[in-house]
């Protein structure tokens, strides 16, 4: 399998505070890669940098063999890199159909392809078809999440990054969304899915675990899922599919700014962790 996205020595931060201090990973074409980690681990920061919301401080991001770090979202979406942001961020006073229409903004001239994409989205999420004239702000949280994913798909992505799709959803609904992620992947789109819900592992080819701005584990989804030991080490246990890896006291409100939604004190989890097991990612010099 070829590598679609290659990240080397990626450094990103906010203001003067570094968050990612040189991470490396590859995403294989046609696969689903899950990015796990506790609150504040740097998952949103990672996908934010890939999708052009945050400017990398250093390192490289390559997509289909070409450097894309530093590009703005319009260029990235046009190339096929689309982020479904944390907290859904649907356009509340626009209808479902209008939200989907805007998803294809950079590709709005491609009539026939968009028609197919729209049909596919309604096929994945029949509820959206039913609600297509309803204002997005009046949809339920789960429906808004489906709309956010659907809107992302309308940009005809080659790589779709989904940040915490299961946040605030019931276990059953989270499962539904994950099943559709499987279908999206089976239909040919490479997926990076950010999660705290370990139930996602069943749906992942590859898994990365982040901790304090570093990648502390990488392997197959299956390996991480079946190894109770591994799971406890990195994710603090938790029942598969049912419970999030870490209980969140309050789900981030849908409209809260993604940057503002990361709790600052989540790093000091009291759970004993056997750090020695961590296969820490090598950190080559950054360019």
């Amino acid at each position, binding site marked *: 399998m070829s590598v679609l996205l290659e990240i080397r020595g990626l450094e990103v931060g906010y203001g003067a505070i570094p968050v990612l201090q040189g991470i490396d990973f590859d995403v294989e074409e046609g696969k689903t890669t899950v990015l796990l980690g506790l609150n504040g681990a740097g998952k949103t920061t990672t996908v934010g940098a890939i*999708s052009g*919301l945050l400017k990398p401080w250093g390192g490289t991001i390559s997509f289909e063999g070409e450097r894309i770090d530093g590009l703005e*979202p*319009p260029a*990235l*979406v*046009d190339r096929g890199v*689309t*982020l479904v*942001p944390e907290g859904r*961020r*649907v*356009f*509340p*006073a*626009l209808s479902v159909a*209008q939200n989907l*229409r*805007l*998803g294809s*903004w*950079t590709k*709005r001239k491609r009539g026939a392809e968009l028609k197919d994409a729209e049909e596919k989205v309604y096929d994945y999420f029949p509820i959206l078809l039913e609600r297509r004239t309803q204002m997005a702000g009046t949809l339920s949280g789960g429906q808004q999440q489906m709309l956010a994913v659907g*809107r992302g798909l309308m*940009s005809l992505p080659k790589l779709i990054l989904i940040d915490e799709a299961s946040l605030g959803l019931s276990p059953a609904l989270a499962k539904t969304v994950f099943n559709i992620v499987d279908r999206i992947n089976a239909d040919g789109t490479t997926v990076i899915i950010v999660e705290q819900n370990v139930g996602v592992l069943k749906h992942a080819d590859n898994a990365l675990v982040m901790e304090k701005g570093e990648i502390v584990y990488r392997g197959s989804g299956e390996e991480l899922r079946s190894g109770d030991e591994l799971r406890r080490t990195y994710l603090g246990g938790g029942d598969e599919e049912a419970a999030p890896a870490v209980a969140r006291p309050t789900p981030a409100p849908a409209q809260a*700014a*993604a940057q503002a939604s990361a709790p600052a004190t989540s790093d000091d989890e009291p759970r004993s962790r056997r750090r020695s097991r961590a296969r820490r990612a090598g950190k080559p010099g950054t360019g």
Partner: protein
Amino acid sequence: MLGVTLVTPIILGLVQGAGFGLVAIGLVLIYKSTRVFNFAAGEFATLGAFASYHFSHGFNILFISIPKLGLWAGAVAGIAVGAAFGLLTERFVVRPLSNRPKVTVLVATAAIATTAIALEIVLGATKSFRSGALVSGHPFVLQGVSLLWQELIVIFVLVLAGVGLAIFFGYTDLGLATLATSQEPTASRLMGIRLNRISMLTWGLAGALGGLAGVLLPPVTGSFFAAYGTTDLLIAAFTAAVLGGMTSVPGAFLGGILVGLVQNLALSNVDQNHFPGAPAVAVLVVLIGVLVVRPTGILGREA
């Protein structure tokens, strides 16, 4: 008797209200996209009026000398100058301040208004100017009151602007993107929408609408002068926008007409010797009345 005190103010009210409506729509566009009240909106109109006057009559200011171009070319110049001023405001004031608190941007728009007024005083001292009607004469007479072509044009243009913007926001991708940007800027960026371009579009459009009001209204209402838009249009337009709910284009349209009607009916039916300032009070009463009954404005939703 009754016919005259109603028909004349109604006609004048519609016409003036249409002018207020144009400026109010500009206020709403900017409020929707930046959540800021644009104090410079009135001066977009005054600059439009000055530009249209000077370009139609020809001028010789500083090193620039322009021959007499006629009323229509002057009108186009007025709209263009309004749009250009809106764009300059966006590029050099609003955009650099985009990460600052809203109140900073608000004060900056007031500073732009005063700068524009200073510029107008340079361009026209403190004189009043009378600009000519684009089309002179009366097409018809209604209940003994003759209607001017220019008055019909103003109303027609407002209707055109309202319908045009309704189509723009409701049925075009660019209009949809403009609405999206005001609702969810981050998601809009992620869709690949360039926020700067949308912002330029909004300010340019608001400037052009102001310029249009400055071109069309003075021939009907009499004259214009430095700060004309701020003294004669801004408060009324602001009231119109608030009446319409501050975020609704059709609401601003209706609000403008309502303010124009109330002002002119009060002006011609209340004895100004006994009750000076009656028009302003009447507008205030209507504003409070509407907001008590419908706190979200006449239409009460974003459109």
